[in-house]
């Protein structure tokens, strides 16, 4: 008997492609039915989609007359690419935006390559010096011609709003979360009120308030840039959500970590910065990135206050009489670009989680 046992492998049916199919797709009659239905759907969806996007599509040309109308006409995107990417930013000044992109790209790639030295300095540069460069390069100053923010638009504007919103909202969110858990009642109550007010209001309302009502409260003649008002709105809105995410992480920390930090003599802020936050933020990375992705997509709402972000400008160029009737292409393109950015964030978050994993 023992000899027979030694030679006995798993039943053939469990092995190989057949085994996999059987186990995962055809394990019983209703799973089989669902599998067949799914295949049928894919068969009806995928080929037409591929045909429309690639095989029957037009890629070369300069006017709508070059579109054969059998598939997508990507000439529409191609002809309006400057508007879609940069808005009304003056053409001769576009190098300034591209220069900023380039710096961002180089430092981003540098940070992504494992085991390089001085990453801390590059990070510090990105967080402290880079924003200054951005402000000067993008809006003008130091001999550069001023470019009003009403000319900003397209993907560029989306990245500005999302970038500023995301980068500034995280530290504010962390402070709000710490404040809400503070032992000082005044701090705790103020932070709670702040968080709950911002979370309880739709972003669209926040933007309307920032754009239309805020100026009413300001003294005559004081005029904040509309973009800055929108940025502040997006920032606090995102911060309120992040605060609750971070608070969740703080509450999941075992009490022993606080006690051990105190026992070795760390003060409150050092304990938070060196022991508690590194661990609790790591725990909530997926939720933080989820929040970032949400705020990235929510930037499309700035259209309601007359800022033409990426999606807004695509809709806008679709109303150009020369290009009426190409909104499908516009939306598909917008979806694809949004997906690339959101997936990049998601991918980065998974990478970060793996990298920071120390076994607990």
């Amino acid at each position, binding site marked *: 008997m023992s000899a027979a046992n030694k030679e006995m492998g798993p039943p053939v049916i469990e092995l190989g492609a057949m085994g996999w199919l059987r186990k995962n797709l055809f394990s019983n009659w209703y799973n089989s039915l669902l599998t067949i239905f799914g295949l049928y759907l894919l068969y009806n969806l995928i080929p037409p989609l591929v045909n429309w996007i690639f095989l029957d599509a037009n890629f070369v040309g300069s006017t709508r007359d070059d579109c054969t109308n059998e598939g997508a006409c990507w000439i529409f995107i191609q002809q309006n690419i400057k508007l879609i990417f940069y808005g009304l930013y003056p053409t001769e000044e576009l190098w300034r935006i591209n220069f900023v992109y380039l710096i961002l790209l180089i430092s981003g790639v540098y940070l992504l390559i494992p085991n390089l030295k001085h990453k801390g300095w590059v990070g510090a540069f990105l967080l402290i010096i880079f924003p200054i460069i951005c402000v000067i390069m993008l809006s003008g100053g130091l001999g550069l011609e001023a470019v009003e923010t009403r000319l900003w638009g397209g993907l560029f504007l989306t990245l500005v709003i999302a970038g500023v919103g995301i980068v500034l909202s995280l530290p504010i969110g962390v402070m709000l979360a710490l404040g809400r858990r503070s032992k000082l009642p005044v701090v705790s109550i103020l932070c709670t009120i702040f968080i709950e007010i911002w979370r309880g209001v739709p972003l669209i309302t926040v933007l309307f308030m920032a754009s239309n009502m805020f100026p009413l409260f300001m003294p005559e003649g004081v005029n904040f840039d509309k973009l800055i008002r929108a940025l502040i709105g997006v920032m606090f809105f995102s911060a309120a959500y992040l605060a609750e995410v971070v608070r969740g992480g703080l509450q999941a920390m075992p009490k022993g970590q606080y006690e*051990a930090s105190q*026992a070795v003599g760390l003060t409150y802020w050092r304990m938070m910065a060196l022991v508690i936050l590194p661990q609790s933020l790591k725990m909530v990375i997926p939720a933080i990135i989820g929040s970032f992705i949400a705020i990235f997509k929510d930037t499309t709402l700035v259209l309601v206050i007359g800022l033409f972000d990426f999606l807004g400008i695509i809709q806008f160029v679709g109303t150009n009489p020369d290009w009426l009737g190409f909104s499908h292409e516009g939306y598909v393109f917008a979806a694809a670009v949004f997906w690339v950015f959101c997936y990049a964030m998601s991918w980065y978050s998974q990478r970060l989680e793996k990298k920071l994993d120390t076994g607990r």
Partner: protein
Amino acid sequence: MSSELMIEMKNVHKWFGELHVLNDINLEINKGEKIVICGPSGSGKSTLIRCINRLEEHQRGNIIVEGTELTNDSRSIERIRGEVGMVFQQFNLFPHLSILDNCSLAPIWVRKLPKAEAKEKAMEYLKRVQIDDQAHKYPAQLSGGQQQRAAIARALCMEPRIMLFDEPTSALDPEMIKEVLDVMVGLAQGGMTMIVVTHEMGFAKEVADSIIFMDEGQIVEAKNPKDFFDNPESERTKTFLSQIL
């Protein structure tokens, strides 16, 4: 032995809500003394030592550590925490830091030692608890006994004058208890002032200058080990000893 007073507790009381966890505690501990505290669970022994470095706040009476009275003044708390090291039942190492960084963190940020010096000193103490070969691992990669020894090294890196141990072997698998106790015995022989909450009576016999038995928030009996085991006075002590020996 020089009798420099290190810790003085006078009429200390503490309540958790209605529960009177510390009831009129009076205690004097001199430099170099080793005190073992035992007693049934819930008797207040952990709370007592946690009051010494202010992880718990006492509500009445005075606690004076090395001449500094514990009050709400954060400077006095910080000063005392710098002098008092603590080892926990659950180790409480920082899981996101390597063992070496666990040990050098406080010396760098609290004592303001240069990084290189702090790490050098950390290695020294890790060698002393015989886990210097594990210095670059993370806590989760170590066994319980190794983690607890790392936790002892972390406390020692602050060069405390007093060490508190809160049931340091209770969470360990039996075969790892000895390696931790050996480290503690070594520390005791080096002259450290130690207060140890433990049920390891073998350790108590070998090391303690005085054994304190607590029950229901009170110190029931405090004696040298020989008298404690041979002539316990109180019935409660006798019952307790018969249960654990």
